[in-house]
C-alpha cells in the first residue's frame, strides 16, 4: 500500500545542491533534503490528479512541529490545514512518524516545518498511504 514513487516535490525553500528536495520522494532514507536555516521551512508534494490519501509517513531528523495543508484545485494559493503533529526528538537516529489524513482528497500537500530541535532539519522520505 505504500508508494513513494507517486507524488513529486515541486518546491522547497532551502538550497544545498547536494541535497535537493527530490531526495524526499526517491523512496530512499539514505538520501535527504536538508533545511538551510530559519523556520518555518516548507515543501510541497504534487499528485498527478486528485488523490485520496489515508496518511503519510515522514522519516526525518530534528523536526519538532510539522503542519500539513492540502489543496484540491490546481491553484497553488488555496491550501487548507489537514493535520499537524509534534515529533519526538530522536538523537542519533531518524524520526519516523505516521500522520493520518483520513482519506482526504488532495492534489497537493504542503508540509510546513514550524520548528526544529536544531537550526537545521532534514527530511529523508515521505511515503504516501492511499
Amino acid at each position: 500500500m505504500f508508494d513513494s514513487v507517486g507524488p513529486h516535490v515541486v518546491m522547497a525553500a532551502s538550497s544545498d545542491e547536494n541535497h535537493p528536495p527530490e531526495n524526499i520522494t526517491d523512496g530512499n532514507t539514505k538520501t535527504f533534503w536538508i533545511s538551510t536555516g530559519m523556520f518555518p521551512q516548507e515543501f510541497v508534494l504534487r499528485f498527478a490528479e486528485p488523490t485520496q490519501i489515508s496518511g503519510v509517513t515522514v522519516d526525518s531528523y530534528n523536526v519538532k512541529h510539522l503542519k500539513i495543508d492540502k489543496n484540491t484545485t490546481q491553484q497553488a494559493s488555496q491550501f487548507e490545514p489537514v493535520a499537524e503533529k509534534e515529533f519526538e526528538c530522536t538523537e542519533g537516529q531518524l524520526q519516523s512518524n505516521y500522520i493520518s489524513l483520513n482519506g482526504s482528497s488532495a492534489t497537493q500537500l504542503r508540509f510546513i516545518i514550524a520548528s526544529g530541535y536544531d537550526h537545521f532539519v532534514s527530511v529523508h522520505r515521505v511515503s504516501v498511504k492511499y
Partner: protein
Amino acid sequence: MVKLRARCLVVGDAAVGKSALCHTFYSDGTLFQKNYSMTTGVELIMKCVNIPESSDSVELYIIDSAGKETLVETCEKMWGQPSLLCLVFDLTSQQSFANCSCWMERMAAHCKGLQIQGVLVGNKSDLSARREVQESVAKEWAQSQGLEYHETSAKEMENCDAPFRRLAQAFHSLYQQRRDTIQNLGPA
C-alpha cells in the same frame, strides 16, 4: 554550492551604535549617521556574506532592534526565532556593558531551547579617551557567555564587518557539522 539563511538579532542598550554598525556593514563602510536617530521598532537589513574558500554563502537577515527600555517589549514580538546574536555595548558606557546580561536573558526566552552562536561587540573604539570598559574585562565576560568578542568603531568604519562575517562563518561551520551528523545517522 550551499545557500544558508540566518536570522541575526542585534540588541543592546539605546544609543550604543547598533544601527550605525548595521548600516556601516550593509553599505560596505560608506554610510555613517552622525546625528542620533533612535530606532523605534525593528529594522530588517539583508546582506549576503560569502564564505571564504567555498562557493557557499550565508544570507543574513539582520534584525536591528530598538534599545530604549520602553520599546523593547513591543520589539520582542518581532524578533521571531533567532539563529545568531550580535550583542552590542558602548565602550564609553559601563552601564551599557552591565546591561548585557539582561539582554542575554531576554534573548534566551526566544531561542526555544536552541543554542545560539553569538558575538559581543564593544562599539565606539574611536573614543579612546572616554573608554570605561577595558578589553580584558569584556573579553572575559564574553567568554563566560560563549560569545566571541570584537571591538568596532562605526564612526571610523573600523572592524565593522568582522562580527557579522564571523557570525556567518560560525553558522556555516555549524551547518557542515550537522549535515555530517545527518549523513551518518542510523535508521529509525
